[in-house]
């Protein structure tokens, strides 16, 4: 389901890679990553509920749409980098891996290679899958002309 959603408009490179990591498949992530350096888990991985908020009405007033399960994890690499991850669902392994990659990506030396080998291919894969789902959904789209006809 998360694949059906666009990546949105991440404001910073870190927001973008965290979004990609949160939607990644843990096996694909692990195989692209190879060996993981030593790290300490500072918190989690732990599952909990987060409130999803929506906006409705002419003024766009926020309301609570409902709660969803999310898993979070924070790790610290032996080099002192702290990485965080929040992922939908209760995939603890993904949360931990994503936190490790987030930590590694903050190292300017490793960042370009990691972005090239891990983040970009995963982002591309997610974008392709999203486009596929969007195309399937758009084939069943129902167009409502009522308003336009009335105005005409």
């Amino acid at each position, binding site marked *: 389901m998360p694949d059906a959603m666009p990546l949105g408009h991440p404001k910073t490179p870190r927001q973008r890679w965290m979004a990609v990591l949160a939607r990644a498949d843990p096996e694909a992530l692990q195989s692209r990553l190879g060996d993981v350096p030593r790290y*300490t*888990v*500072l*918190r989690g991985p*732990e599952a909990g509920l987060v409130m999803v908020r929506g906006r409705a009405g002419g003024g766009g007033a926020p309301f609570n749409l409902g709660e969803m399960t999310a898993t979070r994890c*924070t790790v*610290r690499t032996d080099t*002192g*980098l*702290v990485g*965080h991850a929040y992922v939908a669902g209760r995939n603890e392994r993904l949360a931990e891996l994503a936190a490790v990659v987030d930590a590694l990506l903050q190292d300017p030396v490793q960042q370009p290679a990691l972005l090239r080998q891990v983040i970009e291919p995963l982002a591309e894969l997610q974008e392709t899958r999203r486009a596929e789902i969007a195309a399937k959904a758009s084939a069943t789209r129902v167009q409502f002309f009522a308003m336009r006809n009335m105005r005409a």
Partner: protein
Amino acid sequence: MSASIDLPGFADPVTDAQATFRAVLDAMARPGTIHCAGACLAAPAPLNRATAAVLLTLVDHETPLWLDADAAQAHDWLAFHCGAGMVHDPNAAHFAVVLSLPDLTQFSAGSHEAPEGGATLVLQVPALGSGSHYRLSGPGLREPKGLFVRGLSSRFIVQWQQNRALFPRGVDMVLCAGTTLTALPRSVSIEEG
């Protein structure tokens, strides 16, 4: 988020928090008894293990926390693991971390309608079970009980008597040293010697 949160919290959050909660509960029910807490925890400087364990257990996003200037080094760790909102005004705090005896009147003593609004001070002392001798009496103690604490200033007795006079308002205290803690609820009377 910087690298200043370089230590984990409880290894087993549920069990460890329950054990610490039990220790604080027993200490509050029987003032002056000494209990163990935080033995397996790596505490961030300058906090000792018992202080860190008590804070991890009791403090969360609904309980504003005040740190004295000496404890400021542990700010990031507490903010991350407790999710606590830090306040600059001691009177707004539900919990306070103090490394030396502060002026007790600067903290909220609650109101007569809601005396539970009184702050809880977590005071870190060099040692429990040695040092100056205090005689405690009050609810929870069948007969007066002795307590040795090292590192409480000479102003403590006078300050505590003023706090005791506010009852049912007042502040409660948890004293922590190393991996031990004891509690002084506002209902306890303390004399020196």
